């Protein structure tokens, strides 16, 4: 049997496997949401001023909703490539975590298939797959199940995305349909805020991004990311010591006694030096 007909047979076996259809059914519920996202992303790309051909290329090649939406405003003003890529990489960081879960199911596949699994594995596939196979060990029906879910997800995304690209071209820019992309990202952002540290980090990022807006090369994005990550980690470090530190008053012209020095270094006490003036 030639290699090509071998591949065709492999595809046919995968598609006809009952798990393939099972996956398509499992994905049906979330497909509507995916489709709406695809439509919004397609519209947002064209309304940012991207030519239709380029938007089609982006939709088919990048295939990542929130990363695409995040870089659209950056590409529209000609931000340098590394800022565009860094922003996308940050938004995609969750997939890196997912990939360590995928590994326990697909590590035995050859590299090219592992890369293909990676490329087609979006968030909703991850959720459906983990619900169906909670045990992290390889089983033969996992591969057809994955490709069933991946095919459904790909169609549910690309068809509305391409429709959005073509339709948006007919709607005047002044309607402001591109704002739907901002709202979509707003929804994702709100879903990431679940404690004090994340709210604080967001406030810092927003302030920094606006205050540093005049920087060239869209560097305000970088400044905002750095400031927010620093603020979040700082807040976490503070929260870890929830017990209230006590204040140690240090008289002027003297040093801390040794045992109080260790307390201050451990964060259990805050040294406050008396000053010799009113």
């Amino acid at each position: 049997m030639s290699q090509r007909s071998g591949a065709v047979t492999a595809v046919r076996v995968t598609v006809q496997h009952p798990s393939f259809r099972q996956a398509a059914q499992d994905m049906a519920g979330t497909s509507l949401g995916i489709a709406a996202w695809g439509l919004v992303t397609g519209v947002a790309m064209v309304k940012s001023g991207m030519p239709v051909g380029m938007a089609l290329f982006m939709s088919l090649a990048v295939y990542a909703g929130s990363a695409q939406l995040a870089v659209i405003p950056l590409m529209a003003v000609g931000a340098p490539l590394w800022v565009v890529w860094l922003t996308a990489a940050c938004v995609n960081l969750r997939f890196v975590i997912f990939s360590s879960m995928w590994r326990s199911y697909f590590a035995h596949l050859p590299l090219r298939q592992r890369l293909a699994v990676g490329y087609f594995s979006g968030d909703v596939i991850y959720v459906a797959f983990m619900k169906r196979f909670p045990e992290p060990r390889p089983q033969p029906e996992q591969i057809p199940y994955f490709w069933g879910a991946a095919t459904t997800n790909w169609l549910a995304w690309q068809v509305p995305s391409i429709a959005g690209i073509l339709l948006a071209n007919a709607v005047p820019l002044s309607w402001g349909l591109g704002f739907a992309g901002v709202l979509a990202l707003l929804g994702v952002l709100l879903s990431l805020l679940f404690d004090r540290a994340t709210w604080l980090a967001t406030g810092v990022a927003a302030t920094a991004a606006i205050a540093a807006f005049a920087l060239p090369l869209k560097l305000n994005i970088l400044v905002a990311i750095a400031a927010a990550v620093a603020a979040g980690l700082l807040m976490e470090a503070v929260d870890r010591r929830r017990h209230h530190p006590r204040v140690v008053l240090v008289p002027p012209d003297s040093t801390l006694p040794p045992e109080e020095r260790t307390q201050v270094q451990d964060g259990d006490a805050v040294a406050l030096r008396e000053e010799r003036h009113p």
Partner: protein
Amino acid sequence: MNVTLDWSWVEPAVAIAGLAAITVISRAFFMIPQRELPLPDWLKRGLKYAPLAALTAVIAPEILMAHGELIGTFRDARIPAVLCATAYYFWRRGILGTIVVGMAVYLPLHIGWGW
């Protein structure tokens, strides 16, 4: 005859090719090496803040600025749209509804009243 070739498509095309590579690398990250790698701590920590920082950095100027300056008026359709969308999100926790509510407030104000 002086025909200048239009090279303006090159940079976005390169950007998009790079973004496609980022999609593959991030989604396959721990499946790429032969040996299993432990999940490093910096990744777990970074995961909590880097995505929300990047998203905020992108959308905050899109919502709060016009012509490179902080907007100085409340007669801007984006403000009520974002407030209503946020309220909806915390009421129902659905992203799709957040988009729909936001646009339902935004479009009439923007197209109808010119805000």
